[in-house]
């Protein structure tokens, strides 16, 4: 029997024609355009809740709303309302407007405003800052000022185990972590409780997540609601240097990104693709326990987009030239000196020093007067 190839469907997205298989969503079609031509990356609708590796996710945050100007070739009427592109399937001859439609852009601005209503503005403290999807989304599509004057919702702090830190105030209820817990782990210990304004991510009966793959909720979370407790306040994302590495792991693929501060691995995450999605989830042993370079086989620096803040203050080793002449001249005219400083990494010592310095600073004028 002759195999029948599925008929390809032709749609127009922002004036660009693309052929996709039936059953593809508008979002996937847009991503196909961007993957074929990198300069079209800005056309792809943003996604806060949709996560391709997690089936049935999406359709909740409304960040990806687009205008369908023509439903299909058979029925050319436009769709009456904006549709979420991540769960709407394409039809033959569909015409979609995203960045070309002002209405879509205005709506997106309002969506940012809605998402930020209860989101605390604690980016300076949040460990997710720098790789936060909501930050990117608000930066690209939102307005600079907030109109919201009321108190933001707050929650009682819940401890969900030694590895994952839950900040419920930062949650935007995208349900990604719930899908992860449902689909990656075999028993459900994590979910959303209550309804509407009061709904919150929680582990049932405040039970610590002890599944082997539970750490993946950190990578999946688009905001800083679920963060790595072992990385808490260790460093800002953009000061650490990502390196791809792998190891032989019996439980997972072992392909990870190591985040370095100097020679020290301060964090291990799964690898993210262009859309910030993890295709190969990693186990908790890899994520939380293998924090030595000797545990890993290094593959080289992770490719970081030039536009990303993570690329700030990082230079390619092959482009840096040492000032040969100046160094040679200095070597002939001056004797070598030892200017290494004691580098304190012990947290307790640093804390004590900070308090001492505080006192010193506070009594500086008194000292100056007495001397």
């Amino acid at each position, binding site marked *: 029997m002759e195999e029948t190839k599925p008929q390809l469907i032709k749609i127009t997205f922002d004036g660009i024609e693309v052929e996709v298989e039936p059953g593809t969503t508008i979002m996937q079609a847009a991503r196909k355009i961007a993957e074929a031509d990198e300069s079209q990356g800005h056309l792809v609708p943003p996604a806060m809740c949709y996560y391709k590796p997690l089936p049935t996710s999406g359709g909740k945050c409304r960040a990806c709303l687009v205008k369908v100007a023509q439903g299909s070739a058979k029925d050319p009427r436009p769709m009456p309302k904006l549709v979420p592109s991540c769960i709407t399937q394409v039809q033959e001859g569909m015409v979609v407007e995203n960045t070309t439609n002002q209405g879509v852009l205005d709506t997106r601005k309002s969506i940012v405003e809605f998402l930020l209503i209860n989101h605390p503005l*604690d*980016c*300076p*403290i949040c460990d997710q*800052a720098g790789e936060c999807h909501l930050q990117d989304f608000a930066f690209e599509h939102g307005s600079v000022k907030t109109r919201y004057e009321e108190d933001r919702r707050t929650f009682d702090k819940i401890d969900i185990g030694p590895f994952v830190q839950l900040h419920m105030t930062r949650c935007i209820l995208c349900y990604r972590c719930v899908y992860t817990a449902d689909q990656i782990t075999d028993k459900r210990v994590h979910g959303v409780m209550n309804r509407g304004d009061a709904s919150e991510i929680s582990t049932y009966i405040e039970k610590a997540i002890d599944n082997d793959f539970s750490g993946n909720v950190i990578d999946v979370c688009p905001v800083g609601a679920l963060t790595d407790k072992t990385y*808490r*306040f*260790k*460093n*800002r994302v*953009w*000061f650490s240097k990502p390196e791809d590495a792998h190891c032989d792991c019996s439980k997972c693929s072992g392909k990870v990104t190591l985040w370095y501060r100097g020679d020290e691995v301060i964090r291990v995450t799964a690898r993210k693709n262009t859309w910030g999605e993890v295709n190969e989830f990693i186990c908790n042993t890899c994520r939380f326990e293998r924090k030595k370079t000797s545990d890993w086989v290094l593959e080289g620096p992770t490719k970081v987009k030039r536009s990303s*803040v993570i690329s*700030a*203050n990082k230079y390619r080793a092959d482009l840096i030239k040492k000032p040969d002449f100046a160094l040679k001249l200095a070597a002939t005219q001056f004797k070598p000196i030892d*200017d290494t*400083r004691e580098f304190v990494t012990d*947290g307790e010592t*640093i*804390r004590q*020093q*900070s*308090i*001492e*310095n*505080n006192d*010193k*600073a*506070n*009594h*500086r*004028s*008194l000292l100056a007067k007495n001397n």
Partner: protein
Amino acid sequence: MQLTNRSKQVSNKEMTLMERAYLPAIATGLAITIKHFFSKKVTIQYPEVKRYLGPVFRGRHILKRDEDGRERCTACGLCAVACPAEAIQIVAAEREKGEEKLYREEKYAAVYEVNMLRCIFCGLCEEACPKQAVYLRHDEFIPVFTERDQVIWGKDLLVEDMTNRYTREAWTKEEAHALDAKRASGEVTNVVPRAIP
């Protein structure tokens, strides 16, 4: 051939008696010179006397505290990433119970060091700071250093002294411009410097 049209015809006339007498011209010149002895000097004796350079002059760094004496800095690292000379080094730590009087936020900079050899006093750290924590003082410079270890300034030198708070007339460029405009229009003559609350 004429190259420019700025050339002047030189006069070759005979001098008058007044001009030939010579002394009146000398006296006029001397009078001008002597007059300047009594006018106000345009220069100042620099190291002893210093000019006011305006409220937003960029001198040495200060880490502000709020009115309760808590440190504003939350170690977000924006100053360090904005710094074109990479002069700022921060180590963050989590605030513990009982330290609420020392630090305003959950996280604070346990180490905040500025390498004064690298710093170019561009003020980008000041602009990047979301917490109004780091400022460049308008009234103090970095003193001349003689030893290697005086170059890297830690928190003991940077954090504001609550017994002698740092105040200025304007905390941002915009405020300074507004103030200048008001001064020019004669609306205000003197402004009392204030600390940011």
